[in-house]
């Protein structure tokens, strides 16, 4: 059979190559263990691999028989219809098996990617705000484009790997039965392949690491220039840099070729050993035939089978990049999935209308040390508490701890019920706790629907007047006047500007019956003029006897609070 389509080693021809990978098993055991579609894929591929091996052997033996019969006895291939049919059938089945592997391989890859993506998203969402600390954006790119790298891995690499585990040994076994000497030649060259690969790898690793670093830096400079093109144009200086683009490109090309020069050495070794092995086998058989030490039939069969032994190994080598990318994506996914979820409590939350919330010496590790570090606050029912502090002191994080969204590294968040019973927030049944509060995050989050639906979702039993009242108080009325109650806001309120979304969220907070209202920097996206709306809203909430926790910077807002807690050293008041 012919060599497989070889994807070029440097298939992304000038992207900076990935750094040297950690050594991993070529087939991640967690994948087979935990993803049903992947398990089925592996099993099916092994079976089809065995079928393909059987076909390759049938073709070799059949062709040898037909050739020998023709040359020795002058029997035409058509006079041996059984053998001829067997050869053709085997070739047909082999085509079919390859097609089925591909067909269902794609389906399994699709299912595996979908399965892992849903698990990853759901787990990350459950992990809370610090999911995969320090690589928040990475999870998004892993779940979108990262997991897609599993397709070439599962459809391209894994089947070849499993063919190497089935076709290679079976063909070798048949060769050994037909002609032990050829088997010995093949066996000697086989282990040389990984040996030489490692040798070439270790010889070139330092060299290519330097070249890759060089490429990376040139690439960064090039992208910087591209990124700045709109700025250059605004300044009227957009002409001229194209010379730099070309010069940087040329230097990048030189570096890339320098690194490819070594990268291609390993494929050269692979190619060298496998072709050399076939050549040695052919010469050895030929010389023994001349001497009359061998029959024609086994000679022909061995000649057909010899390349089959190396074929899957060469394909595996050619798909090396698909494997590293795929395995890296898998490893990252399973690492996130292995992060334990915060414990789900079972105690029902007390009535927040009459409970006090408190943070005791809370510290949470962040990239820049502890933030917050030793936060203390007590939020009594019916009071307005402003949480302030310089940026980076962990105000939002402290709120997340208080709401049971995030486990602190030190200290504890407590709910003190009307009866004086103190409960750790972590032991609460979160649903019963969260149903009693409403949070307005820095970037407002809205459900899909029309203006009326989105607003009414905050309190389904609210009457039309209540909705209009809330809209009027939060400056939403002009928006409604302009667009109408039935304007569809699309997903996440995309039909509105950020300021309008903020007002809609404020109206929702006002409408919601929740006894605790948490506002995280409610004035962030509003202009000075509309700041008044927030101030009025806070007063209104206080009148309604609700408890308000507001994260705030501005003096005016701090002035409306009953209590002010400042995080960090900077004391505002």
């Amino acid at each position, binding site marked *: 059979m012919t060599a497989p389509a070889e994807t070029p080693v440097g298939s992304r021809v000038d992207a900076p190559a990935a750094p040297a990978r950690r050594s991993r098993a070529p087939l991640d055991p967690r994948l087979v263990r935990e993803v049903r579609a992947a398990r089925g894929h592996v099993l099916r591929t092994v079976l089809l691999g065995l079928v393909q091996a059987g076909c390759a052997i049938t073709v070799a033996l059949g062709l040898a028989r037909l050739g020998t019969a023709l040359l020795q006895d002058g029997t035409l291939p058509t006079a041996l219809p059984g053998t001829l049919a067997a050869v053709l059938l085997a070739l047909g089945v*082999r085509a079919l098996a390859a097609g089925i592997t591909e067909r269902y391989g794609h389906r399994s890859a699709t299912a595996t990617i979908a399965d892992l993506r849903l698990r990853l998203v759901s787990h990350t*969402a459950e992990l809370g705000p610090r999911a995969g600390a320090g690589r928040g954006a990475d999870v998004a790119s892993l779940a979108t484009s990262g997991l897609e790298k599993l397709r070439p891995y599962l459809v391209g690499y894994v089947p070849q790997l499993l063919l190497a585990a089935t076709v290679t040994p079976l063909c070798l076994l048949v060769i050994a039965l037909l002609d032990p000497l050829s088997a010995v030649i093949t066996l000697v060259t086989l282990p040389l392949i990984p040996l030489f690969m490692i040798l070439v790898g270790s010889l070139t690793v330092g060299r290519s690491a330097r070249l890759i670093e060089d490429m990376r830096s040139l690439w960064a400079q090039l992208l910087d220039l591209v990124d700045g093109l709109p700025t250059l144009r605004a300044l009227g200086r*957009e*002409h001229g840099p194209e010379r730099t683009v070309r010069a940087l490109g040329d230097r990048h*090309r030189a570096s*890339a070729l320098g690194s490819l020069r070594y990268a291609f050495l390993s494929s050269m070794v692979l190619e060298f050993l496998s072709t050399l092995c076939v050549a040695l086998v052919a010469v050895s058989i030929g010389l023994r035939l001349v001497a009359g030490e061998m029959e*024609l039939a086994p000679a022909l069969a061995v000649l057909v089978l010899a390349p089959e032994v190396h074929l899957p190994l060469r394909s595996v080598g050619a798909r090396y990049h698909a494997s590293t990318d795929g395995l890296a994506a898998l490893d990252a996914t399973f690492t996130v999935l292995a992060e334990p979820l915060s414990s789900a409590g079972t105690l029902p939350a007390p009535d927040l209308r009459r409970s006090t919330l408190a943070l005791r010496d809370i510290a949470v590790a962040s990239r820049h040390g502890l933030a917050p570090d030793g936060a203390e606050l007590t939020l009594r029912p019916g009071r307005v508490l402003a949480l302030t502090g310089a940026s980076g002191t962990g105000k939002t994080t402290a709120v997340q701890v208080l709401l049971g*969204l995030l486990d602190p590294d030190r200290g504890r968040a407590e709910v003190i019920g009307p009866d004086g019973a103190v409960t750790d927030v972590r032991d609460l049944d979160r649903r019963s706790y969260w149903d009693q509060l409403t949070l307005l995050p820095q970037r407002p989050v809205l459900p899909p629907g029309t203006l009326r639906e989105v607003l009414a979702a905050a309190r389904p039993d609210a009457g039309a007047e209540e909705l209009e009242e809330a809209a009027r108080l939060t400056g939403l009325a002009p928006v409604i006047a302009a667009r109408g109650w039935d304007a569809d806001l699309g997903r996440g309120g995309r039909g509105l500007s950020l300021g309008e979304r903020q007002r809609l969220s404020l109206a929702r907070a006002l409408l919601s019956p929740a006894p605790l209202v948490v506002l995280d920097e409610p004035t962030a996206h509003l202009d000075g003029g509309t700041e008044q709306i927030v101030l009025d809203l806070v007063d209104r909430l206080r009148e309604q006897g609700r408890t308000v926790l507001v994260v705030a910077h501005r003096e005016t807002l701090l002035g409306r609070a009953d209590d002010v807690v400042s995080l960090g050293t900077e004391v505002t008041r």
Partner: protein
Amino acid sequence: MIALRTAERALALPRGRLLAAVLAAAATAGAAFALAAVSAYLVTRAWTMPPVLDLTVAVVAVRALGVSRAVLRWLDRMLAHDVALRGVVSLRATLYTALASRRDDALTRLRRGDLLTRLGDDAQELGDHVVSAIVPALVAAVMAVVAVVTIAPISPLGAAAMLLGQLVAALLAPAAAHRAARVREEAVVEGRAGVGTSLLEILDDATSLRLEGRLEDSLTGLAASQRRQDRALDRAALPSALATAAVPLAIALTVLGSLIAAGAAWSAGAATAGQIGVLVLLPLSAFEAATALPAAAAQHARSRSAAARLEAAAGERWDAARPEPSRTAERAITAPLRAQGLTAGWSAGAPVVRDLDLDLPAGSRLAVLGPSGSGKTTLLLTLAGLLDPLAGTVDAAGQDPRQQVTAFPEDSHVFATTLRENLRVVRGDLADKEALSALGAVGLAAWVGTLPAGLDTLLGPDGTTVSGGERRRLLLARAVVRRGPVLLLDEPTEHLDAARGDALLRALLTPGDESLVPATSTVVVVTHRESAIPPGTPVLRIEELR
């Protein structure tokens, strides 16, 4: 297809090098093919027990081919990647030129990420086009001819079978693979809108969704759009499978034909034993080059999409773009800025400014006020000639505004180069003394003092990081060193503490105040600090215009 042709011309592949790459790759495939042919000949010829000397040539040839293929492989890869990388360099430079010289607002309309994707990923995709599509397709064509020509002298019937097999492999496999790639790409584009969007929403808003108990619903929604995408993707699997099976099928056909031809040739006494061996065994090794065709077809489909995206960004026939001399032409010292019946916005359906008449005499100042999201920045870009007006006209001293107006948008880029070069980007002949005084004027003197190498300090990700406030002042310093006739500044004092920011704003807006900009410059400042605007300054309120 036209888009791909344009992109291929922009690659400007050097013909000699491309030919060398194709020849080397054909020689690699040829080495394997010849090895199979010669060893088949060797074995069957040896069976007739000729004098050993008769076999010497074949034995040596087999050994030589066994060794040479690996070297040829290395060489062909190097040559193919070299020509591809050269192509990418040329394409990227041409693309940069084409984007820079567009007269309309296409560049302004391109999102930042899109620009990087066009010049980064799409340019690379066309590099891959050379390595994975152009070269393999040419090699497959060469090798098909070689295979047919090798068999033809032995048996015309065998050659006919080989030709048929090669045609099946060369037509069926790529056609099916191309179809699969198109279907898959459509599904992926669709999925990006469905799966990608809801996935990012869930990850971004996880906290709120959990608190409000909407997480389950959102995950169900994600699973549903994932299932839709999966069904779309599954439609690509069948053509994909057909593409994989096509080459083995072609082999089966050829084997059948060759066996019959071998039988006929042998019984007619028209062929030697060695030739029969070649005829029977060669079909198995004659399709190596063809196996690369499905991948080449898939690459072709990807290249087409990339080329279409490039055309959308850079315009038709962008490959013809040539660098033009920089617009450092003499500028006026001062110029009036005029807008008549100006309607501005990103799309005709949603204008942010309607029917605006503006007449700014040379050297005057204007503050633009308005709530966030009201379109202040859009107006600024339109006045600078960076965004085409939806209706009406803008001119500076009767000329295209781009000749006279310099805009300093809020999201201006700080280049990963020295502080000096980041200012010189505005004026190439800037002296250090002037640079330092401009930095001082915007309140960066102390910051410059802390920099390890002063004006030579590298900024950006690999150098000294610049905070939001410092960045803002740096952009203001650019405006200061510009000394142009018309300057448009977008929120120049955002992220600065109130006292310092307001003082800078006053200096910009007071006519005749030369501490930041020359008195002769016409200055428009977008801001939301109404309280800091000096009394008597003309103010344009955006919301009122709606």
